[in-house]
Structure formats: structure tokens, C-alpha cells
């Protein structure tokens, strides 16, 4: 198992990759990529069991689905540095004929990419399907997915959330990058999320918070707890706090307002 220092070194190199890749082509999404860096580092370097000899079926492997596909610089860097494809290929990011397009696509055949993403709100549905497939196949490994908090404004998310709880998809851990920001400003200014904890719990999920969403140790502890909560008849949601949290603390202090804005 890698040490915390090794994970921090990995994340720091990924950070360099992200800003260099985006700078080179003057295009891409550095903010969310940097925000989820430590999470994806811990997931791929410390938590998931997988083979870099990539197969789309991924039998007897933990599988990850990136739903907020715009943070592809992070995903590509972590995949490359985890051994899925040569690190040198990161230099082709967003260039013509590259396998590393701005949003991940499956038809380019890049190892590690399981869904085309970028159109927000779809990843949870796919991840739930994969989780149910694992169950049908008697495969005990887990499914993970990552979503932006702005993505929670998509209706398909809540259809999927309802389905996962209703069908007891308890081999699935969805993580929300809870930063309070989206493309046009604060989520509370664009379309208030209210309390995501209250919403997911109301849908029948187990919810846990990782308050320090950029802290390696906190993420390790949170993912370990999430894993321990699988197999209990409910899907698991991690709220990964990667923003300054002022807006969420407001809702925690005034839950009636949270319920009001959630309507």
C-alpha cells in the first residue's frame, strides 16, 4: 500500500500534468480537475482493485465511472500514471486524432475509459447498471462513480437515485464533488441544491461526508467507511467537501431554509 507521502507526491505530479495539459492547448477544465485530484489519486492508488490490462467487462475488478467528464485532464493523468497507457500520451490532450479528447469517449479505445461522458447526469445510471451486472454475475467487486455537485441539477440523477435505492443496489458508491461552484457561478446562485444529504437520505441512500475533501487521510478514511457500508441493502453516497463550505454551513445552521430551497 502506498504511504501518505507517496500519495501526496502522486497527486502533486498529477496537478502539474493538469495545468500543463490545459495550458498547452489553451483549452480544458482545470478547476474541477484539481478539486478532485486527491480523491481520484486515493481511489486508483490505494482503494480499487483493477487490472491495467483493460477489458470493458472488467469482471472481478472494481470499476470506476467518471460522470463529470469535463475533468478529463485529471482522469487521463491518473490513468496514465496508474499504468493504463503511456504517460507521454498526455502531451496529445485535446489535439486532433488524439485518444485524449476534451471529454472522454469510448470509441477512441483509451484504456480505463468505460463511458463517454461530458453530458452531465448520465454516469450514475450507467454505474448502477454495472453494479447490477456485478450482482447478476456473482462478482463481489464494487462500482464507484464521481459527479459534480452542479450535475445534481440534472433530472436523470434523481431517477437513478430512486432506482438504485428501490432495487437495493448496495455494491455501489457514488461520490459528489461538493464544491458549491459550477460553470456560471455558485450553485446556490444558479440553482440551489439545498441539502444533498437530506435529498439522498430521503431517496433511501446511506450518506457520509468527507469534510476535508482534498486531504489524503480524510479521503482514505471516508472511502474505507463507505466500503464498510456496502452490502447493507442501500447504495452509498459520499459528499466530498472540496469548497470553502460557507454555503453548506449556512444550510446546516438553518435546515428549514435548506428544506425550502430543496423544494
Amino acid at each position: 500500500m502506498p504511504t501518505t507521502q507517496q500519495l501526496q507526491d502522486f497527486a502533486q505530479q498529477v496537478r502539474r500534468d493538469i495545468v500543463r495539459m490545459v495550458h498547452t492547448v489553451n483549452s480544458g477544465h482545470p478547476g474541477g480537475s484539481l478539486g478532485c485530484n486527491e480523491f481520484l489519486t486515493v481511489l486508483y492508488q490505494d482503494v480499487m482493485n483493477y487490472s491495467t490490462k483493460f477489458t470493458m467487462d472488467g469482471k472481478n475488478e472494481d470499476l470506476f465511472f467518471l460522470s463529470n467528464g469535463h475533468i478529463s485532464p485529471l482522469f487521463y493523468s491518473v490513468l496514465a500514471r496508474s499504468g493504463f497507457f503511456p504517460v507521454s500520451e498526455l502531451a496529445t490532450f485535446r489535439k486532433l486524432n488524439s485518444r485524449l479528447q476534451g471529454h472522454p469517449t469510448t470509441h477512441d479505445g483509451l484504456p480505463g475509459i468505460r463511458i463517454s461522458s461530458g453530458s452531465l447526469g448520465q454516469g450514475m445510471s450507467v454505474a448502477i447498471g454495472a453494479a447490477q451486472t456485478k450482482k447478476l454475475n456473482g462478482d463481489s467487486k464494487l462500482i464507484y462513480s464521481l459527479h459534480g455537485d452542479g450535475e445534481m441539477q440534472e433530472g436523470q440523477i434523481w431517477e437513478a437515485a430512486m432506482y438504485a435505492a428501490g432495487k437495493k443496489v448496495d455494491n455501489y458508491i457514488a461520490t459528489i464533488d461538493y464544491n458549491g461552484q459550477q460553470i456560471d457561478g455558485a450553485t446556490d446562485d444558479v440553482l440551489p441544491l439545498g441539502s444533498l444529504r437530506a435529498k439522498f437520505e430521503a431517496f433511501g441512500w446511506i450518506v457520509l461526508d468527507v469534510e476535508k475533501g482534498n486531504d489524503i487521510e480524510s479521503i482514505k478514511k471516508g472511502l474505507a467507511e463507505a466500503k464498510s457500508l456496502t452490502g447493507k441493502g442501500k447504495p452509498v453516497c459520499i459528499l466530498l467537501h472540496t469548497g470553502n463550505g460557507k454555503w453548506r454551513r449556512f444550510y446546516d445552521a438553518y435546515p428549514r431554509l435548506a428544506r425550502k430551497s430543496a423544494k
Partner: protein
Amino acid sequence: MGNGVDFMMHTHAWHGKAPNDAQLEIALNQNPETLGDY
């Protein structure tokens, strides 16, 4: 959001925007090479 690069943290401004040359230099100085650049 933007963790590890101080001017990119906690703002939507860097959702889909690339750093210029000077900003790249600042970001890289804040994050020295550890495993080797590509």
C-alpha cells in the same frame, strides 16, 4: 475546486479556462515535480 493552485481555488472562474504562460509558471512553482513530467 482548484486545490493546490492558490489562484484557482474556490472560484468558478477556472471551471473551463486555461492558464496563460505567467499563470502556468506560478502554478508549477507551487507544485514542484515529484514523479517526472511527461
